[in-house]
């Protein structure tokens, strides 16, 4: 059986880990198979659980989160017959598949949509914590927005520095309100459970919000402009489907691979006009074709859009 090991945020973080969970559940429903899953309580359990899963014969073992790169560097060589899948970071070992996402590209697209829906000249971003991953969201978003409207003002705020930053919808809501009062009419949240407060605040204020990771359009139909999709669920689903002995190496989940994108469904189709969609699709094609390159903050810790 395959196994899924969540990162510290826990299975139900409303974004990253939960997407993985959804992917695994989808696999189970479709195949009727069973899988093992485990949530950590402490960082010391990373190695412990990875080992235990391998020892228990789970294969493949899907491990969530960039913080687990050192975990697999340590554990994977000891279990050459087990396939490991690492989501969000790269480990160069023969039995590890590393899945990385081009969050900046997806964010670029939703940034464009934000700028096109924007009327006030200001859009904004709420991140959980100022870490490179989240900064990459912010940077891609700003690039996309500025591509549409070079004069647009992009406000970027973060919730905090403690783990509570990912689970504080109250604060998220207040930050969103502060941004809205500064003129923002599209708020993009990449902050786990905190984001729920952001989306709520946007709806209450009658402005747009943008969800993250999973498709969150359904949460506040008519207010959530779109969601920046990061198809972690797909990556997990694929890994489970590929089964033991899956192909290893680096899997780039970028726009080209359909690993990131923006959500368009019945909840927001009336919000995205045809022109908007055309513009975004054009950009998407350009990015896939390599004609347009979105800068990844993680490469040099700098963002050209600011």
């Amino acid at each position, binding site marked *: 059986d395959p196994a899924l090991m969540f990162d*510290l945020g*826990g299975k139900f973080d409303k974004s990253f880990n939960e997407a993985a969970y959804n992917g695994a559940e989808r696999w189970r429903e479709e195949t009727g198979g069973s899988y093992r899953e*485990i*949530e*950590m*309580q*402490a*960082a*010391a*359990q990373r*190695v*412990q*659980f990875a*080992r*235990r*899963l391998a020892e228990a014969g789970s294969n493949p073992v899907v491990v969530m989160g*960039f*913080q687990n*790169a*050192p975990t697999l560097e340590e554990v994977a060589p000891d279990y050459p017959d087990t396939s490991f899948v690492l989501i*969000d*970071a790269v480990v160069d070992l023969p039995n590890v598949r590393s899945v990385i996402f081009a969050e900046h590209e997806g964010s670029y697209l939703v940034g464009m949509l934000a700028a096109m829906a924007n009327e006030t000249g200001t859009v904004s971003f709420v991140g959980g*914590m*100022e*870490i*490179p*991953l989240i900064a990459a969201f912010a940077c891609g978003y700003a690039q996309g927005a500025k591509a549409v409207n070079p004069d647009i003002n992009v406000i970027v705020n973060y919730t*905090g*520095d*403690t*783990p509570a930053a990912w689970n504080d919808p109250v604060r998220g809501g207040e930050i969103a309100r502060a941004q809205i009062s500064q003129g923002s009419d599209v708020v993009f949240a990449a902050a786990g459970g905190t984001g729920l407060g952001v989306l709520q605040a946007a709806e209450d204020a009658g402005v747009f919000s943008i969800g993250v990771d999973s498709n969150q359009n359904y949460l506040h139909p008519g207010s959530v402009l779109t969601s920046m999709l990061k198809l972690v669920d797909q990556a997990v689903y694929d890994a489970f489907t590929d089964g033991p002995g899956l192909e290893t190496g680096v899997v780039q989940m970028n726009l080209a691979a359909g690993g990131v994108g923006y959500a368009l469904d019945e909840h927001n189709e009336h919000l995205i006009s045809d022109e908007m969609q055309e513009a975004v699709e054009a950009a998407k094609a350009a990015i896939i074709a390599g004609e347009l390159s979105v800068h990844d903050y*993680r*490469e*040099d*810790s700098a963002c050209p859009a600011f």
Partner: protein
Amino acid sequence: MSKGRIPHWADVTLVPLTSVLLAFVISAILIWAIGESPWAAVKLMVEGAFGSSYGWGYTLFYATNFIFTGLAVAVAFQARLFNIGGEGQALLGGLGVALVCLYIPWPHWSLALIAASLGAAVFGAAWAFIPGYLQARRGSHIVITTIMFNFIAASLLGYFLVNVLRPQGAQDPSSPRFPAETALPKLHEILGVFGIPFSTVPPVNISLLVAVGMCFAVWFMLWRTRLGYQIRAFGESEPAAEYAGISPARITIYVMLISGALAGLMAVNSVMGEQQRLVLNAVEGAGFIGIAVALMGRNHPFGVFLAAMLFGFLYQGGAELALWTGIPRELIVVIQALVILFTGALDNMVRIPIARLFAMRGAR
């Protein structure tokens, strides 16, 4: 109210054991309520934590963290100072360890251990010094200031990890891996010297011995040295301490320095012994667990040791539980809460009937 006296042995064994039992009975009901087998769960926990050297290794590893943070709270409490800042002090201790390990080349782990311990202690102590100083000189309530310093420490560490220590281009807000020379010997290597086999997997390492040593050191300091005497006298009665010529301000600052240093030392185990690099939120709430550990250990170093072992057991047993059953990790938090409640706060609920039993037996 006619109360018999409980023999000492019963007070230190029967009462806590019955309390733990009660906590587990209620936990079992909860486990049953969510549709799992309580008996299997208990077996899993106990076997997982104590059934193998592997389990022992993890139990001891977690216990090591809690010994440090528990001692930190306990020492401060001896002076009636409620140091809630263990979390922040341990975070800073991690920074100290990281700086020592990353920026100074060490030929051998033993030297690195000594230097990193010093680094951790100094950084932790420095972080505790400010609240201590403010309490001593300005009367600023230590509970508030240490809470605030936890938040400030998190921000400071966030800044250091994202902007200073993180290698260029790395995705992870963490320091680079420490040089291999700073890797601490694990327990199996130490036991191996004596020919005792032990699982190579768990991260339990020589810091455990440092922690046990600290229990003795703290005990010795409190009950065998002049400083300890002054700390305890100050804690019991400030006017009496003043009468004895013990300066409240000075003792407050000394105690907070010691407390912060102990909390900081936790990083030697988690950052240097286990992670081998400094990551975000390296303390993971151990600072807060330290409060429960100290209180349950009645602020005595040996009590702290036992309470830390109990929490080590709950962590490791809980991990096994989460691994092999569908019991969510939050339920393990609930079990921890029940253990804290019954052994720490509701102990009289058990003690009074037991005392009555003894009185009845005595009367017969």
